[in-house]
């Protein structure tokens, strides 16, 4: 029989330390929906999604019950819509967004990701039109997530796209100004976007993926924080081992759910994403993990080193627990979604510059950060350019999801609700980067991209 202590440990992780499966995400290819008739394209997309994912929520809920572990989100990622609707006008893309919204409502899923474009070297017509449609599409829908990949290590950085995305973020903030500019929480700008990421807002179903696939994202910051607390004042080798062991256990649950969900739905299993994803709930914080390692508060000196150790140990522990690892795979540091991060910002310990440094050693980037509503578009583009450079030069994924909260300034906070949490508005540098951003063109790929 199973060991009593092991059973009680699992129960404690779920009941007291918020262990959950953060998301079961079904990737669905929409390439077979392409049509030159917009109405037919919309109808085919609706049918493909609602048919492929018909049982997704039901199966996920059955798995929750059978294995006794919460599955927080049931989501869908689709082929980047800019490819599928390459001939559409911006208005046509907005109509398509409404059709995706109807599919999400019909299925009862939490989000559909893939209202996306890849423009790292330049934009096809469909990508240009989709980017133009983003503010309206996000303002008029609830469940649609958008992402734009503006750079890769191979292609360099498309600075025209970086400039445009600063403006698009501002427009999105304005159109959703009644709700603290929440539209920007559903929009993320990437470098080196992964094609199998199950997490929002950046989930897309890449063009090299199978027709349908199941990807699973695990969670468990509370479990890691508790294990570190229990380990006490051990040295760094023992600390890393503690994280590895607990990450192995967390990931094994993700692997079990991924394999079983794929089997029951009759679709291939794709990957498990080894990410520590926090929530605003007490005891579900990545900042708390770092503080349990010995930092008085997240953001102080030593934070980047602590995060680097955590991120590496999570991967080392997780990779043996899963047959296929992918997605973003790293600790997330979304400010508004992590109670410890929020407190650290409120106390002035955690700054934007520190967060930027932290993203060099973990996934994913400057995430869920509220900034003043009157921030110039060029400054937002500057923030994007800095963060994207870290990804391009270090051959990793980085991303920016900032919210210029319309009508609000430093000292106030934005309330997004639910898992998106709330965020104190962070101060930015006042000096302009407009001349730099306005140059246009591309920043060339770094020398180490030439590996062949």
């Amino acid at each position, binding site marked *: *029989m*199973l*060991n*009593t202590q*092991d*059973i*009680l*440990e*699992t*129960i404690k992780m779920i009941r007291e330390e918020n262990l959950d499966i953060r998301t079961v995400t079904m990737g669905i290819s929409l390439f077979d929906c392409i049509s030159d008739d917009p109405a037919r394209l919309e109808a085919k997309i609706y049918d493909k999604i609602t048919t492929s994912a018909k049982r997704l929520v039901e199966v996920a809920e*059955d798995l929750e*019950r*059978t*294995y*006794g*572990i919460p599955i927080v989100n049931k989501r869908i990622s689709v082929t980047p819509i800019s490819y599928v609707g390459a001939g559409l006008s911006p208005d046509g893309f907005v109509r398509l967004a409404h059709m995706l919204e109807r599919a999400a409502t019909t299925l009862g899923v939490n989000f559909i990701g893939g209202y996306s474009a890849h423009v790292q070297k330049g934009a096809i017509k469909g990508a240009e039109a989709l980017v133009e449609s983003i503010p309206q599409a996000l303002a008029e829908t609830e469940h649609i997530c958008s992402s734009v990949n503006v750079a890769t290590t191979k292609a360099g950085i498309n600075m025209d796209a970086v400039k445009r995305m600063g403006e698009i973020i501002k427009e999105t903030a304005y159109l959703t100004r009644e709700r603290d500019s929440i539209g920007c929480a559903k929009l993320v700008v990437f470098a080196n976007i992964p094609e199998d990421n199950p997490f929002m807002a950046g989930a897309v179903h890449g063009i090299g993926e199978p027709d349908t696939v199941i990807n699973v994202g695990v969670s468990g910051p509370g479990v890691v924080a508790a294990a570190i607390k229990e380990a006490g004042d051990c040295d760094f080798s023992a600390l890393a081992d503690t994280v590895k062991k607990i990450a192995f*256990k967390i990931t*094994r*649950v993700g*692997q*079990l759910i991924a394999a079983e969900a794929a089997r029951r739905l009759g679709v291939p299993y794709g990957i498990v994403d080894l990410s520590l994803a926090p929530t605003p709930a007490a005891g579900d914080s990545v900042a708390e993990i770092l503080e349990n390692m010995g930092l008085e508060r997240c953001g102080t000196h030593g934070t980047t080193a602590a995060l680097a150790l955590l991120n590496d140990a999570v991967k080392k522990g997780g990779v043996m627990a899963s047959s296929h690892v992918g997605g973003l795979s790293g600790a997330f540091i979304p400010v508004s979604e992590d109670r410890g991060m929020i407190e650290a910002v409120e106390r002035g310990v955690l700054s934007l510059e520190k967060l930027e440094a932290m993203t060099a050693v973990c996934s994913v980037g400057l995430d869920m950060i509220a900034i003043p509503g009157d921030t110039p578009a060029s400054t937002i583009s500057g923030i994007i350019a800095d963060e994207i450079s870290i990804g391009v030069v270090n051959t990793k994924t980085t991303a920016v999801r900032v919210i210029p909260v319309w009508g609000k300034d430093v000292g106030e906070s934005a309330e997004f609700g639910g898992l998106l949490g709330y965020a104190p508005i962070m101060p930015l540098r006042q000096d302009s980067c407009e001349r730099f951003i306005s140059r246009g063109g591309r920043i060339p790929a770094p020398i180490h991209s030439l590996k062949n």
Partner: protein
Amino acid sequence: MKAVVTVTGKDKVGIISAASAECAKYGVNIIDISQSVLKEYFAMIMLVELDGLKVDFKSFAVGMEEMGKESGVDVRVMHEDIFNSMHRI
């Protein structure tokens, strides 16, 4: 299919009897059982065989949880594979 039933809470007379009676009601066979009492805290773990289950898994799990609420203890029914996955390589 096998499941693990855990019963935790404050120790009181008749918990094992109530849990095993509920299992019998659903046609569930108890394969193994262990219990420990630490101070007043009670933890019982039963490994059960569900091949003879008269209802679906959800109804059995909900029934057991309801029984737990009536007895003032926390009852969980979970497929054994979650424990095997986490604790065995």
